[in-house]
Structure formats: structure tokens, C-alpha cells
């Protein structure tokens, strides 16, 4: 369930004018911007963008980029986008902006949606950037990481519920050979080649993969993610683990991303913003419950204690917190 609180009744024109007022003068009235935009759903935000363009002949996003700064600016500018456009923009920024693409963003983009949804994101990406997502991921990565990310982003996964038990069993064995054949049980060693693990993770349907992971645990006595645990500097293994966790339990995976980012604030605001902004209209409520269970405190408390200022206000608003104002 969504955590966003948006009124039924609203006037895009009035909102556009109120936003413009917030931009006027020496400073910027961030509180008002947060109050308005933080309480509008995707459709409403789209109408506000259109109204602003009509009235002031300016792109609202450009204006926000100019008037806001830092973490708040990035979060709000992502928030205001239409969800599909946002996914494409996040993917693009994660590939192009950084020294190395953030594989977590690519994996979240590819694995947390249906085949059709991913296709829509890819089409939007092509429309915005005049290149395919595959070619950008490919040209900014190398080696096994490239093979894996490109495969995962390209696939049009089968979405039926059927499972072939024999195949799941045999592929669990194949995975075991590749993972453990390279350096002993429980990780620590490098993978014994990665062809099969990439093939299986990037082509099989989700139900088929879940069955395979179950067999893996039964056969090898340990979960596949534990087997892949190893040198934290080994990004490829980390990407494989992240992908498997994403496939197994997306909400728990996201909760972990948020938890890690809160503990590493100063370097990880992007991850925190990304999760909250992308899930506020989807299933942030369930994620909050998982977070509470796992960490013993609510996500709002964690955000409130670890972030500051208007950025904090914005995140809390999206989390459905009315008390802050």
C-alpha cells in the first residue's frame, strides 16, 4: 500500500501559482513546495507540471532544479516525474553520472517489475536518450558484471506460474558447482566461472528461480546468498546476491537498502531517497512494517533521527507523516 497522502480535491492551477509564489523573492519557500508536492499523486503532479508550463511558460522541473539544491533537489526532482519516466531517469543517472554504474539501481529497475513494465521503461529510456538501456549499460560496464547486467535488463521474462521440478533440481546443482567449486563452501573463494549462474538468473521465470533456490538450500544446506557471501570488494558477487534477494523478497531487499543507507548517511542519501520516492505510491507501507520488524524502530524514527532540515521534512511527508508540519 502507498504511504502518500493526497487529497481528492485539488486545483493544478492553484498549485502552480502557489509553487511560483514559493520561488519568488530572495529565498525559496521549501516548506510550501514540500507541502504541496509531497501530497500529490502522479496524475496530479503531471497536471501541475502542465499548468505551470501553461501559466509561466517554464518547465517546472527546470525551475525546481534552479531553486532547490542538494539532496532535497534530487529527491523532489525525481518525485515530480511520472513513475515510468523516473525509472528511466534513475537508470540513466546511475549509469552515466558515476564513475561506475550503481548496479543496485539497474537491478532494482529490472527485477522489481513485470516484463511489460520493464519494457515500458526501456521504451521511455530510448525516447529520452536516443539510445537503448542495454547499450548504455554495456558500454559502461565490463567483464562478468556487464554480461550479467545486460542480460538481466534485456530479458522479457516468462510470467507463467509453471515450475519444472527436474530443471529446478538440476539447476540448483549447476549453481552449486559454479559457486562452491571455486573456493569451498560458505564463500570466500572466487566463482568457478559465471556462465551458468548468469544464464539461470537472467533467463528463468521468477517461480522457477524460487523453486531452484529452495532446492539449493535443500541440497547444500545453506541458502544461495550465504554461499555467495565473500569479499565485500567483489562487486560481482555482491550484485548476484542483490539480484537473488530482489527476486526472493523485494520488500525485504529494499528494506535492507534503506537500512544500509541510513547507517551510511553522508554517502548514501541517493539510495534512501530513491527507495522512498519510488515506493511511496506503491508499497512503502508494507516496507515500513518489514523495517520495523527487522530493526526494532519505525522507518520514520530512523529517518527523523538521521536526516535533517527540509530533506528530512520531504521524506517524512512521503512516508505519510502528518505530524512534522
Amino acid at each position, binding site marked *: 500500500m502507498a504511504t502518500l497522502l493526497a487529497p481528492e480535491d485539488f486545483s493544478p492551477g492553484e498549485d502552480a501559482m502557489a509553487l511560483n509564489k514559493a520561488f519568488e523573492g530572495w529565498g525559496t519557500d521549501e516548506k510550501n513546495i514540500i507541502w504541496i508536492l509531497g501530497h500529490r499523486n502522479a496524475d496530479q503532479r503531471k497536471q501541475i507540471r502542465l499548468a505551470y508550463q501553461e501559466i509561466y511558460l517554464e518547465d517546472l522541473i527546470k525551475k525546481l532544479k534552479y531553486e532547490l539544491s542538494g539532496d532535497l533537489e534530487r529527491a523532489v526532482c525525481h518525485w515530480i516525474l511520472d513513475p515510468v519516466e523516473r525509472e528511466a531517469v534513475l537508470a540513466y543517472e546511475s549509469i552515466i553520472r558515476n564513475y561506475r554504474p550503481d548496479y543496485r539501481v539497474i537491478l532494482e529497475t529490472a527485477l522489481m517489475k513485470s516484463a511489460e513494465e520493464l*519494457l515500458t521503461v526501456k521504451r521511455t529510456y530510448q525516447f529520452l536518450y536516443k539510445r*537503448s538501456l542495454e*547499450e548504455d549499460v*554495456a*558500454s559502461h560496464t565490463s567483464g562478468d558484471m556487464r554480461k550479467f547486467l545486460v542480460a538481466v535488463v534485456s*530479458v522479457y*521474462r516468462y510470467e507463467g506460474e509453471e515450475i519444472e521440478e527436474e530443471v529446478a533440481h538440476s539447476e540448483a546443482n549447476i549453481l552449486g558447482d559454479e559457486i562452491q567449486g571455486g573456493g569451498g563452501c560458505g564463500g570466500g573463494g572466487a566463482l568457478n566461472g559465471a556462465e551458468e549462474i548468469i544464464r539461470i538468473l537472467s533467463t528463468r521465470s521468477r517461480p522457477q528461480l524460487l523453486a531452484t533456490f529452495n532446492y539449493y538450500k535443500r541440497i547444500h544446506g545453506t541458502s544461495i546468498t550465504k554461499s555467495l557471501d565473500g569479499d565485500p570488494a567483489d562487486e560481482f558477487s555482491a550484485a548476484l546476491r542483490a539480484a537473488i534477494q530482489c527476486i526472493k523478497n523485494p520488500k525485504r531487499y529494499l528494506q535492507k537498502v534503506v537500512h544500509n543507507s541510513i547507517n551510511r548517511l553522508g554517502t548514501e542519501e541517493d539510495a534512501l531517497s530513491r527507495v522512498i520516492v519510488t515506493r511511496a505510491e506503491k508499497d512503502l507501507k508494507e516496507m515500513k512494517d518489514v523495517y520495523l520488524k527487522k530493526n526494532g524502530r519505525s522507518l520514520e524514527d530512523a529517518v527523523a533521527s538521521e536526516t535533517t532540515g527540509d530533506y528530512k521534512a520531504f521524506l517524512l511527508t512521503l512516508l505519510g507523516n502528518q505530524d512534522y508540519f
Partner: protein
Amino acid sequence: MAERKKITILVRRGKKLNQEGEKIMTSPEECEALRKAFSGPHGVEEKSMLEILVKCNLADLTTFRKNSPYIFLDDACRFEKWDPFHMKSLEIEFLRFQRAVIQRTMHPWERDALLVRKSLEEKPPLYNLLIELACTRTSDEFLGARKAFQCLYSESVEEFVAVKVQGFQRRLLVALVSTYRYEGMRIDEAAIKLECQKLGRAIKTDQNNEIEKDDEVLRILTTRSKHHLKTIHKCYKEAYDSNLEEDLDGIQILRDTVNCLCAPPIYFSKILDTAMSVCPTEQEKEALTRVIVTRTDVDMKEIAAEFNREYGAPLIDRIEAAALGNYRDFLVALVKRGMAN
């Protein structure tokens, strides 16, 4: 005595006789035409069969059988037996028109999904067919085929190809069937220059035909847009004074990939020529139907022009020489229609 008298009377009346002196209704020319009608190599001549066979009496048929050593075997059974191999071929030739009609009427997605399946279930597998399907269709057309494949076989194309193909071909083929290429015209000149150099270097330094293992070559071929690749092809020609696909000649699947992506008419006219050559396999023959039926709405004009240029004869003339009956007429009509578009 009476027999001889009968024969003399018949000869005087100008009636034809076979070797045994029996009356026959068909001329040697008609016999020859009938033989041709049964002999392919592409289709059957229904008209001849209809007209001539109806005229034939039993004596004609005996003569026909005795004079068609490739169709009937004169063996120990003391009668002219149908060669079972020829009978099997004839079944296929009769079906050729039917298959063309079904392919033409089938939804392109279903048609391509069935062809993808077939390409890897045949022994030996037909990698060039898979490459043709993945590379000559637009991104959305092939996506449709992928969806149809899931509908028909309850698994994705990616899973299927990944399991069926091993080794280095797997990387190329899985990537080719998975990618959703940008179909627009925007290109990055700097990237093209760089990638052209990378390809050139990879080809020149390749000692053991191992270029298909090269990560960068695979990346460029399997992710870049068609327009980008065509521009690289041009750039490569200017830089190295040779065609990219010719320099990749050592590895057929790479050569086919480049042709299908950069110049489909060249690829298609080549397989049309093979289909109508002297001794094609059944797989090679089927390409005649497939190419004409699938390209009549796309680039038939370019294919016909390329065919003429490369093989010195108009495509229609070659088809008329190689194919028979309704099948021939159907193909020729489709080619003409495609050229008029």
C-alpha cells in the same frame, strides 16, 4: 495374326503406339512434361498433371513409368515401382504451396515464434535462421514474436536459446534474441569512430578465429542500434578498405549477424540463390518460401535489385526456372507485388 492386323490398321489410321504396340494417347513431349511436373525442385506442376494424366490411358502410364528411371525403379518385383525416396520428396513438393499459403496468412508473431523454435530443434541447428529472425525484424516485431513464443511454449525465448546453445555461440545468440534495440536515427559520432577502431583492431589481431569471444565485439554487435552499426560499417570500409562482414568471414555466425543487421538484402539474396542452386538441402529450399513471403511487404525491391546485381539474373526469372505450378505463380506474384510497393 489378328494382332498384327490390328496394329497395321491402327498405324494406318495415324494412332500412336507404344513399344508393345498398344494404343497411347500422349506424345513423348507430354510424357516429358509430366516427368518434369513430378520432379521439382520446388513445387509440382499441377496444371500438367491435371491435363496430361487425365488424357493418359493405362498404356500411357506404363510408358511413362518405364521412361522415368528417376521416379520409378525397375527392380526385381517385375513391375515399375515408385522410388520411395522420390515419393517422399513428392509429398514435400506438393505441400510447398500449402506451406507458403499458411506462412503468408499466419500472424507474423506466431510465424516467427515457430521459426525460432524450429531453428534450434533441427539437427543440425540453424543458427543463421535464428540470427535472421532476431536481426532482420524490427525491435517491436521481434518482441511480438517473443511474446507469441511464451504463449505457445510456456517459456521465454531467452531460456530456450540459453539451454539449447552452448559455448561462445550462446553468448551471441542469447544476446541477439534478448536485446530491444533503439530503432531511431540518432547516432554518436565519437562512439562510432571508437568502436570502428576497436573492431578493426580485434579483427587484425585475431590469430585463431577467436574473435567471437571478444567482449567488445559482442557488445557492439548485440546492443548498438542498426543505424549505428550501418554507420560503423561505412566507417570501417573507409578506414580499412574492406567490408566488415568479409573480414569476419572465418566465423559464419558473426558474418551473418553483420549482414542481417547492416544489409539484409545481401543476406537474403544469398540464401535465395542457395535455395535455387543445384543441390540444396530441404532447409535451404525452405528459405525460398520464407524470404519471399516475409519480405514482400518490407524490402523485396532491394532484395531483387541486389539479387540481380550479384547473380546477374532477375530474381523472377530464376524463380520461374526453378519452381513449378501454383507455388511458382504464388512466389512470382509476391515478388512482383513487393517490387511495386
